[in-house]
């Protein structure tokens, strides 16, 4: 579904992602873990087309993701196959929750307003926020904002959902409600790639866990194997600190 070939991303002299290759198949739930600054968020942003790698390629359904292309229609078509959930939610503050959810379906997919609102209402109910449709984001708690952000991405019917530390900016008591929504998505068969510090979630839900340090993929395995039998000394060291 998605494949990365030898992707390298640099910020000045810092190599954030170093020659990383990765495949995501339909139905997989991949967790990227690693110490901060290990390049996991940058890797995820390369998949989403938010960062332009210096070298290497990203393929979406076999098609090269080319950020420099003149064919912006094609780029938009590729982008909306992926839903992206940000650490800081990035809801549109000047729009109500419902407007946040219906903007892209109406403007990008060309849905009519009634159908888009119908769909948005269903998704809001699914994340447990049916009563917040007319609220502005500023009136929501962090956990509610993140659930709205997830619903906003789902409104575009993505084939895959990318999560960039979705619970890191939340107060501890709100982490659970967001993880529950993500678990529900996983059980419904959504393909997911997420950067997370929630090891419990990775262990319970992931089909594969990838460990990165210094921009390199050092180990990838099933969660059971990776957490029970870490091979790489960096991973052993990391797990001894976070578990």
């Amino acid at each position, binding site marked *: 579904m998605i494949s990365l070939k030898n992707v390298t991303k640099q910020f000045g002299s810092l190599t954030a992602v170093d020659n990383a290759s990765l495949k995501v198949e339909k139905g997989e739930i991949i967790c990227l873990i690693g110490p901060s600054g290990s390049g996991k968020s940058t890797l995820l942003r390369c998949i989403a087309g*938010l960062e332009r790698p210096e070298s290497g390629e990203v393929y979406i359904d076999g098609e090269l993701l080319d950020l420099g292309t003149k064919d912006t229609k094609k780029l*938009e078509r590729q*982008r*909306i196959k992926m839903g*992206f959930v*940000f650490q800081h939610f*990035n809801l*549109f503050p000047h729009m109500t929750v419902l407007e946040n959810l219906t903007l*892209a379906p109406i403007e*990008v997919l060309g849905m009519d307003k009634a159908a888009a609102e119908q769909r948005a209402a269903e998704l809001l109910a699914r994340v447990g926020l049916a009563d917040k449709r007319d609220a502005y984001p500023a009136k929501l708690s962090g956990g509610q904002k993140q659930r709205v952000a997830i619903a906003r991405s789902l409104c575009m019917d993505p084939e895959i959902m990318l999560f960039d530390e979705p619970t890191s900016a939340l107060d501890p008591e709100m982490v659970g409600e967001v993880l529950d929504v993500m678990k529900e998505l996983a059980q419904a068969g959504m393909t997911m790639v997420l950067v997370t510090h929630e090891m419990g979630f990775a262990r319970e839900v992931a089909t594969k866990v990838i460990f990165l340090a210094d921009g390199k993929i050092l180990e990838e395995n099933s969660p059971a194997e990776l957490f029970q039998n870490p091979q790489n000394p960096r991973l052993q060291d990391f797990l001894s600190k976070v578990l």
Partner: protein
Amino acid sequence: MNFLENLSATWAKFVTPVNVTFMLKAACISVGIAVAALFFGTILGVLGAAGRISRNKVIRGLASVYVEVIRGTPMMLQILFFYLGVPSIVRAVTGSPWNPSVYLIGVVAMSINSGAYSTELIRSAIQAVDQGQWEASETLGLSYGKMMRFIILPQAFKRIIPPLVSEFITLIKDSSLLSTIGVVELLQSAKTLGANYYSYVTPLLMASVVYLTLTLTISRFSRKLEERMALSD
């Protein structure tokens, strides 16, 4: 004491219906020119800002040159350039004389001047919109135009209003420079009255009162507007 008595005597002499009407009409000219310059300047500012953040190097360069040249030279010089320079350039190019009204010249010169300041103001307001808003729009597949229209500009707009109001106040004050090319605006009306009576103190004080009434009213209005916008944050 003598001076104060003198002042009140001249005050009574100046503050007649005819003189006051004359001055208020001139004040309307000042405000009218400022409104026109703000309007056209804002249009130029939107275009300039679009140029300044354009991906095209040439357009970006042209917009920068516009901003730097206008902001780096005195407005007085720009007004004189449009009053003295441009008509003779037009004559040299077309071969026929061109004598536009000084009011037109005033509005054009001040619009172009204001446009340069508005360009920077609008550009910085656009770029101050959180990076995450651009990224969220991108991942939702919004095209550049739709992202600007639905996400970025509505948020930038809030930040643009307060400095645009102070730009308006600046324009009202700076329109006094047009008195030098013969536009009968507020300051020019005071100078005319002064010349009629061979006494300038009172008419200049009268003009100050009118300027202050205008500027204080506008800045008060601006504060109210900011308070209201802060509420919706």
